[in-house]
């Protein structure tokens, strides 16, 4: 009796498992059909013709007419958590009007996963690259669809400044292609300070590098270190140091030299680069100027480094970081409590440069609804609520300054437009082995004292080989 029951349980289980397999396999088949459909149009070359034959009116217009109701566009990117919520919020209205479902998937492991996915033939329709250097590889392999095949040049020129378009143009297998569209940018050359305390102490915002150094020394005499610096960031430790160096490079040499440096033509061991590092060391390696001294820099998390500014009384006074740092400010701060000034020029002949970073959206599958979504992303409308909730600057020209939540962020957008030179974060443009490898590591070794200047620069340069 007993064993009979066991037998029945066993067969019931087999049956159930088999059933489960059949059910999931059927579900899978539907997907297979859809994916199979995409595959045919995966090659950018075969699409060029199709794009020109598109009916009158842009894909975006058609989308607003409801032509793509019920379609789904998959998107993959690195923002998770609060950024993901803000992103979903900013596309909600578009989804509701057009009926296109933008299925966003965020992963902390974006950089590693996107290569596996694209090589495994499972590319998302749209991917968000915060590091254009990474995208460059996919463009070279012809995996990315040239957005200029379906977006007119006038449209792109109207939406973006030429410098943005230049940065989006990358070499493909058959000449240059427009690799994607820019969304969400961030200004990096900002020095943050505690506004009420700064004013109460009688300090003034420096306009030149010399004034900045005088202020630094003044604060030291008054009893505090001026700067709070932290470059610890887990596996990415060192990146804030690369930002500093890039900012100083822009201020001590020509933009052309900067471009050469980023392209690998000007080696790290060159005196121009070494000179910039020395400038940086004047602040970084002076224990009177840095909170916790030089030894604290490599062990302080970049996100925690801003906090001493808002201690009562402040333990440090200045912090150079991109606009996103506001999300690391202690809770309860309002826009009246802080402010920023641009990192001042060093050499007057190079003017006031601005270092920026941004996300470029690239397209891997060509379908009319994906085109519509890409076109939507060229409008500032796609960032509106995100801008309103703070932390991003729009690279598009049609963003209304009134959208920015406070004066500080509005000034960032203004700063972008008035800066004499705009250059993209160099380490994000360099190949991963340098920009996300030896550059980070070499700067960390230099700061922590395990390598001297020459050793560190040679070490970074090895990443280019």
């Amino acid at each position, binding site marked *: 009796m007993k064993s009979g029951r066991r037998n029945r349980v066993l067969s019931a289980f087999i049956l159930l*498992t088999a059933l489960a397999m059949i059910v999931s396999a059927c579900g899978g088949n539907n997907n297979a059909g859809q*994916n199979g459909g995409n595959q045919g149009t995966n090659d950018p070359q075969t699409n060029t013709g199709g794009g020109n034959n598109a009916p009158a009116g842009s894909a975006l217009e058609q989308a607003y007419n409801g032509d793509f109701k019920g379609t789904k566009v998959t998107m993959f990117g690195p923002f998770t958590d609060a950024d993901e919520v803000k992103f979903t919020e900013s596309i909600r209205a578009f989804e509701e009007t057009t009926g296109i479902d933008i*299925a966003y998937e965020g992963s902390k492991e974006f950089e590693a*996963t996107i290569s*596996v996915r694209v*090589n*495994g033939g499972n590319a998302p329709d749209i991917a968000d690259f915060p590091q254009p250097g990474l995208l460059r590889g996919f463009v070279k392999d012809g995996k990315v669809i040239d957005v200029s095949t379906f977006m007119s040049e006038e449209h792109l020129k109207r939406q973006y400044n030429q410098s943005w378009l230049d940065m989006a143009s990358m070499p493909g297998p058959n000449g240059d292609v427009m690799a994607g569209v820019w969304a969400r940018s961030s200004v990096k050359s900002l020095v943050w300070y505690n506004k009420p305390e700064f004013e109460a102490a009688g300090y003034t915002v420096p306009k030149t590098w010399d004034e900045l150094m005088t202020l630094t020394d003044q604060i030291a005499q008054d009893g505090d270190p001026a700067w709070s610096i932290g470059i610890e960031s*887990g596996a990415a430790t060192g990146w804030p140091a690369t930002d500093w160096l890039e900012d100083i490079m822009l201020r001590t040499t020509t933009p052309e030299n900067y471009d050469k440096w980023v392209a690998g033509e000007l080696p790290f061991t060159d005196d121009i680069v070494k000179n910039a590092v020395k400038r940086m060391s004047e602040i970084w390696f002076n224990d009177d100027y840095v909170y916790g001294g030089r030894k604290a820099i490599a062990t302080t998390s970049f996100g925690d480094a801003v906090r001493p500014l808002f201690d009562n009384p402040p333990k440090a006074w200045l912090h150079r970081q991109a606009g996103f740092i506001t999300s690391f400010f202690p809770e309860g701060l309002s826009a009246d409590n802080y402010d920023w000034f641009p990192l001042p020029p060093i050499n007057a002949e190079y003017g006031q440069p601005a270092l920026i970073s941004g996300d470029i959206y690239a397209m891997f599958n060509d379908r009319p609804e994906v085109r519509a979504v890409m076109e939507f992303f060229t409008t500032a409308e796609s960032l509106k609520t995100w801008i*309103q909730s703070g932390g991003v600057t729009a690279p598009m020209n049609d963003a209304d300054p009134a959208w920015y939540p406070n004066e500080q962020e509005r000034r960032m957008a203004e700063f972008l437009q008035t800066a004499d030179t705009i250059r993209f974060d160099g380490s994000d443009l360099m190949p991963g082995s340098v920009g996300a490898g030896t550059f980070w590591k070499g700067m960390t070794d230099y700061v922590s004292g395990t390598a001297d200047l020459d050793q560190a620069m040679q070490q970074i340069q090895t990443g280019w080989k």
Partner: protein
Amino acid sequence: MRKKGPRRSKWLINTVLAVICIIWFVPTLGLLVSSFRPAADILQTGWWKIIPHRDWAAVDTITLDRETDLRQPITVNGVTFSDAQLREGVVQDGNRLVWENRRARTISVQEKQWVMMTNFTLQNYQTVLGGKSYQITMPDGGTKTEQGSGMSQSFWNTLAVTVPATVIPIFIASFAAYAFAWLRFPGRKLFFIIIIALLVVPLQVALIPILRDYTSLGLNGTYFGIWLAHSAFGLPLITYFMYNSISQLPKDLFESAFMDGATNFTIFSRLILPLSVPALASISIFQFLWVWNDYLVSLIFLGSQPNVQVMSMKIANLVGSRGNDWHLLTAAAFISMLMPLAVFFALQRYFVRGLLGGSVKG
């Protein structure tokens, strides 16, 4: 002399075990304590400060002249100190002098006192379980609070991945192990060697080829796909483990059963399965833990769409875009530990017996 030998070795074993336990336990305890502390506190002091200890506590403040030059020796109560000494803290008559506010030129006088940290919070757990809330500014200028999703959805997803991904391979592997152990068929040795050889192949090398096949079959992001992946990656070890256990069973048992007219299936279901429960239980724990804690395989084949996202990925995303919410990881780690712990304790009475399954000749 004879009596002493075993006792001494027992003592040695216990000491080694105690050391291993402490090495594993102390960081876990630290994690547990940290999970109940506010983020700002974790930055300030170590978790061990919850143990009562003697520490410096301020009892008095000395205010110096505001014009004091910090680069010259500084005189406090008639004694001269350097700025560096006052930054580090200098002990004088059992009291310690340290800058309280260098800018305001105030020095804090501290005394050793018994103190302990008592500031605890459940906030981390609440946020992890209930989801974070985000402030979003709406187009009309007002703000809206968006409640992020909590753990429950990903918990069920993980369960939906883990249970079949544990049961399916064990089920198949038990059949295979029986066949390898007791059935005679051509190529038996060869197949078995192939399976053992597969044990040493790292699963990472299979990721991209399998992903390609999955793409053409449309299995990406489906539960079925991930069950298959986990089953395939787990099968060699489970087959080997079950083979060791099943091949140790006494031969006479099967022979007599066979004489009585039992088919292979009857022998398997009525003799082998009941006799290898300890081995089944212990390999279930292994496979369950592996799948439950897996990040890589889910990342590649399942992705992180909310409807399929497993807990390990949900937890990784909790830290926020720039790692600003690292303090939540402590609480999340303990929550994700609960299920494996429950499985382990439910099956642990078989566990020790099962571990011996492959090692002792019966």
